[in-house]
């Protein structure tokens, strides 16, 4: 058994620990050493020191030197720091300070580590039992209190100076700063408090000042795109700065400060700069600059709305330009028609352009989509001249869908129609468009001028997608009527084969459902016998099939082929096939039996019973057109009630089949119809709303009605008029208890 010798405190300390370990350590630190190559203490040396400490701490009381050793551990470090490290640091300034500091810090880490290793046994038991800071932490604290707190102000200033130098384009020792940052982080002892309050706050403040100054310079000397380039570069640089040598937590705060000074504060000036601000960039199609502007201002809270407002103003101005130019053209005498394809194309092109800008430059951001929409709504509803934009757009579609119009590929047709529907979506008076479109569609369909049924359905499909099936119900109805007509005709033909009646002519009928089609003038013409018999046969057939329906013949529509024979000069017979409208056929057949005797206007009228405006058009087409089937006396180019007509004996033509065109009574649509429909729609909306809500104030009712009417925007006075009408018809009453309110009457 071996009872080890008791080590006395001072003996153990001075002879063993201090002499062999601490002094050695300090000397190595002071004189420098090759960090990489060697360990400071060989294992054997280290173990010895460790064991000494261990022994001194496990000796029985009163020889248990744990407390003393712990104290001396602290004192040693403090002494070293105060006497050796601090004076060195106080000598230095700026970069040199930082260098010295980092060196001393590195040293301290080493010292701390070894001191902890030497006295490690204390950590195991003594420290724990007495709830004391561990050796490691204690050593760190000493460094902080004695060294760090002393020099931190100077050091931070030096660091920031370096950062600013780098900002100005200088090259700095980044590693140096990084090491200092690492020190700061460590000084937080588990948190970033030291870093934040001793360094970061100052950094943010100085950054703010820096960029305040810089941005002022830039604003004064640069145009907006240049400024934005610099801004972008600066922000990138700051970001990489953080990544390189600052703590990652600084990044958002630093960028926020920079963004605030560089972008947020200067935003208005930049956007509105003459010649290079937002509107100028838009006007000059500066795509990259606009993209950059968007990128940068989207980083700033509320940065985009002012930009969107300028974009909206610009688009509105461009659109108003187009409208104004049209107005000019009309004022300087251009002939006004309900067609202006160049104008519509201009609007479509404008739309395309800015859809692309919003999509590409502004990443499809909803603020900008809204700006575009609002701008378009502003000017698309500015009608100039006699014809509304709704009508011009509808006629534009008419041209595309008509046969004999522009020759376009299927793709092009679809593209144009799609774009027109997009433009249409900005119209407030959509119901007006629908009415005009419907009329034009009817004309196309009935005059067989529609280029392609597929295209028609496609266009209706697009409108339906946008506005719902109620909007396109009638149009679809029209197409369906004609689709079914083919089957019905086949059916009728079958019936004819089986039936005993023989028709005087080839006869085909299109039955139109009244509600879908525009109202056509009903003309009570006196038909020639041949046609009368045909209509009678059909009517009987139809009535048998559909007992509850009533047929009304529309003679102003439809066409006929009239076979006629003329005697030529050589007394031979030449026959012709004239393709004419039904009305023309009626008039021509009226001349059968007149032979060579002239018939005056009144007699013709009595015979066929057509109203004057129709009759005159017909006679004009037969007597004053290219092919004069009738000879008129006098030969003037207008039809008067005093004219006389006779079959033109000298008529001849090389061709055999001839189409005789007739001027159309050009009523594009009935504006009264639109108004009536609106009246109905408003009243229906009011009743619906009041039925659901029972009582409502005047203002609320107006608001609800406006929100429910999708296809037009009535002015409040009109709604008020309808409300009064409904009061009169006792659907509502004024609420006797509440002024300005209405009550539903069940």
């Amino acid at each position: 058994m071996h009872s080890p010798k008791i080590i006395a405190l001072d003996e153990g300390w001075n002879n063993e620990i201090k002499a062999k370990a601490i002094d050695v350590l300090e000397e190595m630190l002071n004189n420098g050493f090759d960090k990489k190559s060697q360990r400071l203490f060989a294992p054997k040396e280290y173990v010895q020191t460790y064991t000494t400490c261990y022994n001194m701490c496990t000796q029985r009381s009163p020889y248990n030197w744990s407390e003393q050793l712990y104290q001396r551990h602290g004192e040693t470090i403090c002494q070293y720091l105060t006497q050796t490290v601090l004076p060195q640091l106080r000598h230095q300034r700026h970069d040199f300070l930082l260098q010295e500091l980092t060196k001393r810090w590195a040293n301290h880490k080493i010292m701390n580590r070894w001191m902890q290793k030497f006295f490690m046994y204390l950590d195991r038991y003594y420290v724990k039992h007495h709830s004391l800071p561990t050796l490691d932490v204690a050593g760190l604290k000493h460094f902080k209190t004695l060294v760090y707190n002393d020099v931190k102000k100077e050091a931070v200033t030096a660091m920031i100076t370096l950062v600013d130098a780098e900002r100005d384009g200088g090259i700095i020792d980044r590693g140096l700063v990084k090491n200092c940052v690492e020190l700061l982080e460590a000084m937080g002892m588990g948190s970033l408090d030291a870093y934040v309050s001793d360094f970061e706050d100052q950094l943010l403040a100085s950054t703010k000042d820096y960029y305040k100054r810089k941005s002022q310079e830039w604003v004064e000397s640069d145009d907006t795109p240049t400024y934005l380039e610099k801004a972008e570069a600066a922000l990138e640089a700051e970001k990489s700065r953080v990544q390189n040598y600052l703590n990652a937590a600084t990044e958002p705060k630093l960028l926020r400060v920079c963004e605030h000074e560089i972008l947020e504060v200067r935003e208005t000036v930049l956007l509105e700069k003459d010649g290079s601000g937002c509107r100028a960039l838009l006007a000059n199609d500066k795509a990259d600059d606009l993209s950059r502007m968007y990128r940068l201002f989207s980083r700033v809270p509320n940065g985009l709305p002012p930009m969107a407002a300028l974009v909206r103003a610009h688009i509105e101005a461009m659109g108003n330009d187009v409208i104004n130019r049209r107005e000019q053209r009309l004022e300087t005498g251009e002939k006004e028609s309900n067609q202006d394809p160049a104008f519509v194309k201009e609007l479509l092109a404008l739309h395309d352009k800015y859809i692309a800008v919003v999509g590409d430059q502004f990443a499809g951001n909803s603020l900008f989509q809204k700006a575009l929409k609002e701008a378009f709504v502003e000017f698309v509803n500015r009608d100039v001249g006699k014809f509304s934009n709704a009508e011009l757009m509808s006629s534009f579609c008419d041209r595309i869908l008509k046969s004999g119009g522009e020759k376009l590929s299927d793709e092009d047709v679809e593209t144009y129609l799609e774009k027109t529907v997009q433009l249409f979506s900005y119209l407030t008076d959509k119901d007006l468009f629908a009415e005009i479109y419907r009329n034009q569609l009817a004309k196309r369909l009935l005059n067989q001028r529609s280029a392609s049924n597929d295209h028609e359905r496609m266009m209706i499909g697009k409108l339906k997608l946008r506005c719902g099936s109620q909007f396109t119900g009638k149009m679809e109805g029209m197409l369906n009527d004609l689709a079914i007509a083919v089957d019905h005709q086949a059916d009728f033909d079958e019936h004819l084969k089986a039936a005993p009646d023989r028709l005087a002519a080839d006869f085909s009928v299109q039955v139109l459902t009244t509600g879908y089609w525009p109202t056509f003038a009903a003309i009570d013409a006196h038909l020639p016998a041949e046609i009368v018999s045909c209509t009678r046969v059909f009517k009987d057939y139809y009535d048998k099939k559909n007992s509850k329906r009533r047929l009304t013949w529309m003679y102003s529509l439809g066409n006929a082929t009239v076979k006629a024979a003329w005697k030529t000069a050589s007394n031979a017979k030449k026959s012709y096939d004239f393709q004419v409208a039904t009305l023309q056929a009626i008039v021509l057949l009226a001349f059968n039996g007149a032979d060579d005797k002239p018939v005056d206007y009144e007699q013709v009228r009595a015979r066929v019973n057509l109203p004057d405006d129709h009759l005159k058009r017909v006679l004009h087409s037969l007597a004053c057109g290219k092919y004069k089937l009738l000879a008129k006396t006098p030969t003037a180019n207008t039809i008067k009630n005093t004219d006389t007509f006779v079959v033109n004996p000298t008529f001849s033509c090389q061709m055999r089949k001839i189409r005789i065109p007739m001027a159309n009574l050009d009523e594009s649509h009935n504006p009264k119809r639109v108004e009536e429909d609106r009246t109905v729609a408003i009243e229906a909306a009011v009743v619906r709303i009041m039925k659901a809500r029972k009582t409502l104030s005047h203002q609320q009712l107006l608001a609800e009605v406006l929100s429910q009417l999708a296809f037009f925007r009535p002015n409040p006075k009109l709604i008020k008029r309808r409300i009064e009408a409904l009061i009169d018809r006792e659907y509502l009453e004024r609420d006797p208890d509440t002024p300005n309110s209405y009550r539903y009457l069940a």
Partner: protein
Amino acid sequence: TRRAAARASSTQVRRASGAWLSEMPTSKRRGGKSGSSKKKVSKTSSSSKSSGTELSFENYADEDEGCVTMEGLAKLAEELGIDPSSDTRLLALCWRLGATKPGTVQKDEWAKLETCPELPTSKSTPTVETLKKGWQQLDPNFLENAEFRPFYKFCFEFNREGTKKFLERDTAISLLPLCIEDRSVHTKAFVTFLESKPEDFKLNRDQWCSFLDFSVAIGPAPEFQGWDADESSWPILLDEFVEWAKTQPELAADEKKDEKKDKKDKKKKK
């Protein structure tokens, strides 16, 4: 034929199915003639000198119509010694009786002479004398605004022609000031405004009733305090009236005068 004869001899009391005022004989001087050409009154009224002239339905009803018509009311007016074309108490009487068909009083309505507490005749057997004695209390001027409203509406309803839902322009022009009396500072101006409308202009119930509410809520010209062009839920006719009145500076002075006069009168009444 009997009817035709009667009509021929009665030039002034026509078959009244029309408005009160245009049909109503206006003065007593016609009283004598109308007395002689009275239509089928089954019971000859006992001499009006006797003090107990019963207000029986049969005395005043038109036999063909089966109800009291304008003629019957004219007769009553004569007996009461009042001018039926300007005395609104007669209208108030019909109102209290609950007359529903314009220009007429049905039998069951007439019977309310006995039962309606607001009528002076309800205390005993209704006679012309009791009615005459208590005639003053029928004055609509005594009614509070809340009670006046239904009476005012009645004036419109009663003066319509048959089943029509409006008043002709001229009827409205005469009737309105009569009914509304001094409850509105706008009456004169509004009447002038109506006069500027074409002859075939018609005033509907909503417009008539709203005029009263308008007069209560909206201040005199030219400010028309309380009227807002954008938020107004007044009938469009009244909006037009205000806008028209604003272009007539003379009216402003008048309205202010009337307002002052009304205030004086009200003070006097108290």
